[in-house]
């Protein structure tokens, strides 16, 4: 199993996966859990450039380095999916409560993260393989969309997470608000000015909530006044902020004069969406074409 010459197969992939998981454990012990906050721009942009450069170099050198040839093949796909599946199963079987230690916080657990990175590298390399074969056959299109879509979604969702702003803004009927608070309690000037005219809550006869709505006027940075109604499932967008109906004064119930909005700004979201739509198109084509292949006996 030399890096350069001997062909890498399925079994060596599982050994590779095992080594990866052990390396993850060591990293966890030595450096502590993954600190996603450190990825904030520009670190994520640099990592993106490095990752893409690695994939292109791996593609270019796959004729010389057996390891790179393997990394873009189904023999690497199988163990990388299996290891990632196993890690995600551990996550699904353990309550995700950070106080409970490593397994209670899988998204910061190095072996979990490394398996995802490995699978993402494989899917990226496979995407490049299919893209380069596009000129020879249009039949590559579903595979390009599936692999490239998953690659773009995973990479942008992960690297973009640190740039996402997710704030809560508390409004009182008749009052105007400009600041919102982070999860840790610190406050941020949003650049918006939001006035709550009215908060409405309707219930079913059983008392179960039926509809919450905030009637607001939002003044944008440029001073433009935009009236609107924000409801669950019906957010409003001003200056790149998506504003969601989030909560109300639960003790007052239907009489609540307080409305809590969630303000989200995620600069990487358009790219995640691009990835998602590629996957949807890829899945649609796969449904039509199937993946039938001739069996060789």
């Amino acid at each position, binding site marked *: 199993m030399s890096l350069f010459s001997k062909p890498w197969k399925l079994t060596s992939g599982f050994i590779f996966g095992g080594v990866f998981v052990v390396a993850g454990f060591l990293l966890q012990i030595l450096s502590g859990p993954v600190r996603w906050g450190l990825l904030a721009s520009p670190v994520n942009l640099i990592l993106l450039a490095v990752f893409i450069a690695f994939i292109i170099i791996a593609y270019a050198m796959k004729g010389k380095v057996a390891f790179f040839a393997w990394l873009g093949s189904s023999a690497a796909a199988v163990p990388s999916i299996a290891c990632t599946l196993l890690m995600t199963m551990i996550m*699904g079987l353990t309550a995700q409560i950070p106080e409970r230690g490593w397994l209670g916080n899988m998204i910061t657990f190095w072996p979990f993260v490394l398996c995802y990175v490995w699978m993402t590298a494989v899917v990226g390399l496979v995407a490049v393989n299919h893209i380069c074969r596009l000129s020879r056959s249009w039949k590559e299109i579903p595979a390009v969309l599936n692999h490239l879509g998953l690659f773009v979604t995973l990479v942008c969702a992960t690297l973009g997470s640190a740039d996402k702003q997710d704030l809560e803004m508390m409004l009182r009927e008749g009052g105007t608000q400009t600041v919102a608070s982070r999860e840790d309690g610190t406050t941020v000037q949003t650049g918006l000015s939001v006035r709550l005219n009215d908060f409405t809550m309707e219930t079913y006869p059983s008392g179960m909530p039926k509809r919450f709505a905030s009637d607001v006027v939002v003044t944008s940075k440029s001073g433009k006044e935009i009236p609107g109604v924000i409801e669950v499932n019906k*957010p409003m967008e001003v200056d790149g902020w998506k504003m969601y109906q989030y909560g109300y004064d639960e003790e007052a119930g239907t009489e609540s004069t307080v409305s809590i909005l969630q303000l989200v700004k995620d600069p990487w979201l358009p790219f995640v969406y691009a990835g998602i739509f590629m996957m949807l198109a890829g899945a*649609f084509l796969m449904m039509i074409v199937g993946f039938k292949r001739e069996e060789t006996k």
Partner: protein
Amino acid sequence: MSWDSFIWFAAVSVILWAVGSILAWTGNKRTAAMSIYGLGIAVFFAFILAMWISLERPPLRTMGETRLWYSFFLAVAGMIVYSRWKYKWILSFSTIMALVFIIVNLMKPEIHSKALMPALQSPWFAPHVIVYMFSYGVLGAATLMALYILIFKKGQETSDDMVTTDNLVATGMAFLTFGMLFGALWAQEAWGTYWGWDPKETWAAITWMAYLLYIHFRIARPKDHQTAMWILLLAFICLQICWWGINYLPSAHATSVHVY
């Protein structure tokens, strides 16, 4: 239409499905088998439609309501496989599987009120759940193929059997992808987060990756049918945990918004 009439619609459907299945076994009467089986599907769907109208919302909210769609799509998936690949046993098996879920619904009717909490009042709601139920139905048929190959064929499976299984998985996987991504797009509209590692989402990812593993294993080791079929059975277990098993997982109860 109320849930009380379900037993009558279900009885008529199951009888029609049974007659269709018997005709399929005897061979030579494919058109008759398919017409009668299709009529059973139509009767069953009529009940779903009537429920939809009387509830004034799509019947997709409770576990009982999703089982209704599952029985329906199992029958549909069985019929598609029968019309394309002519397995004479498939109609009987999809009937039995649909019947299991009908019986569960009769024994354990759940509250089917009109109430729909605000988070579920979305245009994404119906496509998200219907697409998932169709996928579960097709993947249920793929599981039947896996059992058939493992138990009855024992290494004697034809290349046609494998092509059928692969195509069922490809179709099921496409719809699984639609369901998962529609869910992500919906969550983004409702909560501003397309993916939050909620236990239901985690298990949806696990299920999706398990079928992904099957697809890639078939490419990497096309001749190892045994292992492939075992992966398919494992994937189906993940699917069941994702769908309803999660309600019994202590890990999910602590944190999920999807437990209902």
